[in-house]
């Protein structure tokens, strides 16, 4: 019995320790921004790995989500005779919520896990250690460019998701279901506010970008340097990112859209 309590206490202390290390790590990543800007080619390389290679999945998912919103939204609104409001519904759902959140979840799965695996593997094969012994700070050289690439990519990807989603909704609503095209846009435009809806959505995606990328690079950097350790770290990245994104989404939504 006491052994179990002791084990619980120990894992609790270890968890807090990890959290503390994670925050110190975060601070180091922030401090590394000037270096990353100076070593611009590194950032470009990582923007490619993290952003460009995520483009396809975000684009396709956004399109399908938008189309489904169009279908489901129409089915519900037509009962109230309000099917002309489909544009509003699709746009607000995407810009406020689905764009930032779904993009963040997909990003965590695709780019986040890849970052964790890459950094974890570099740790396991002693490349990070070797770099340290060559007097090159691995945090500045390897981790920070990847972190900042994620932070920059996320809002762009979320915007692409929302934009292509609206187009998907238009294709289904106007093209397939026969809603008036003009009504689709004209109902939407007064109701979607630049600062309240779009800007808040962008802020959400920036916050998610910071959190998801931070979790991904930290799990990799902190992974146990064995193949099992790296695999566990990759799983943790996806799980913790998902929980963090959904939890933060609730908090941010309450702050931004609550009364």
């Amino acid at each position, binding site marked *: 019995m006491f052994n179990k309590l002791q084990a619980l206490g120990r894992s609790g202390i270890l968890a807090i320790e990890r959290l503390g290390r994670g925050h110190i790590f975060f601070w180091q990543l922030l401090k590394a921004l000037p270096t990353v800007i100076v070593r611009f080619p590194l950032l470009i390389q990582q923007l490619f790995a993290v952003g460009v290679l995520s483009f396809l999945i975000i684009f396709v998912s956004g399109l399908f989500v938008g189309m489904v919103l169009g279908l489901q939204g129409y089915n519900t609104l037509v009962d109230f005779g309000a099917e002309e409001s489909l544009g509003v519904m699709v746009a607000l759902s995407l810009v406020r919520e689905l764009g930032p959140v779904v993009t963040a979840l997909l990003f965590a799965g695709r780019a986040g896990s890849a970052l964790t695996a890459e950094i974890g593997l570099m740790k396991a*094969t*002693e*490349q990070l*250690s070797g770099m340290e*012994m*060559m*007097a090159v700070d691995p945090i500045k050289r390897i981790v920070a460019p990847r972190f900042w690439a994620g932070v920059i990519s996320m809002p762009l990807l979320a915007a692409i998701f929302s934009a292509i989603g609206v187009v998907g909704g238009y294709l289904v609503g106007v093209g397939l279901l026969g809603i008036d095209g003009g009504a689709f846009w004209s109902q939407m435009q007064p109701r979607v506010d630049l600062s309240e809806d779009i800007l808040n959505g962008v802020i959400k995606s920036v916050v998610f970008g910071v959190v998801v990328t931070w979790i991904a690079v930290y799990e990799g950097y902190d992974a146990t340097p064995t193949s099992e350790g790296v695999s566990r770290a990759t799983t943790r990245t996806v799980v913790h990112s998902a929980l963090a994104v959904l939890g933060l989404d609730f908090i941010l939504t309450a702050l931004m859209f609550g009364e």
Partner: protein
Amino acid sequence: MPLVEIRGLTFCRGNRTIFDGIDLDIPQGKVTAIMGPSGTGKTTLLRLIGGQLRPQEGTIHVDGQNVSTLSRGDLYQLRKRMGMLFQSGALLTDMSVYDNVAFPLREHTELSASMIRHLVLMKLESVGLRGARQLMPSELSGGMARRVALARAITLDPMMIMYDEPFTGQDPISMGVIVSLIRKLNDAMGLSSIVVSHDVAEAASIADLIYVISNGKVVESGSPEQLKCSESPWVQQFMKGEPDGPVPFHFAAKDYVDDLLGDVSDV
């Protein structure tokens, strides 16, 4: 003045004491071998010298500077003058051999591309791999990877190189290559080399000074000839590689006959 001076070094990891107040002197310009059974923390010693780990007690002076009290910036400056060869080579896997060797130059100097090219080719030539410069690390054999790592370690013309188990797992030819490279580079570039190994024959063939470490203490030190005539039976067993002696063959167990005649359930 020894290049590396270690006094009263104590280092623990968890409950295990790895080093218990040891003293070591690494002389300049010579090849020093540090030997001992597996798991005595020989690699840990290299990390302590390089400042990646901090000792609980004691001091490590490298070229007169106390490593554990250095600021981050000073430590990095010191590390530029130390080269380290990891057991696996630790090459950066997403870069070619050329880029790996050029890495320290590109990170730490502002040299032009043509100057870098000259230096990289010269370093690769000294390890005999100039023709392999476009290969990727995944295309190299273990021995070749280590040679590339060695070329990378000498790029900034360091004052010392630390070798972590350089002979492990090598075929006889690449073994011979590494052995002769360590000695030749040491003499040609005026380096000081620290070789950590449990490969007695190879290490003894090139070392000027040997330290034998076991259970966190220096058991014996001296030139290879001195150690071969050592009075300690343990050192004799180690140097000759005998399977049984002060370090027993059998793990502690009950009497053999009793065990065989014991109950089936007594596994």
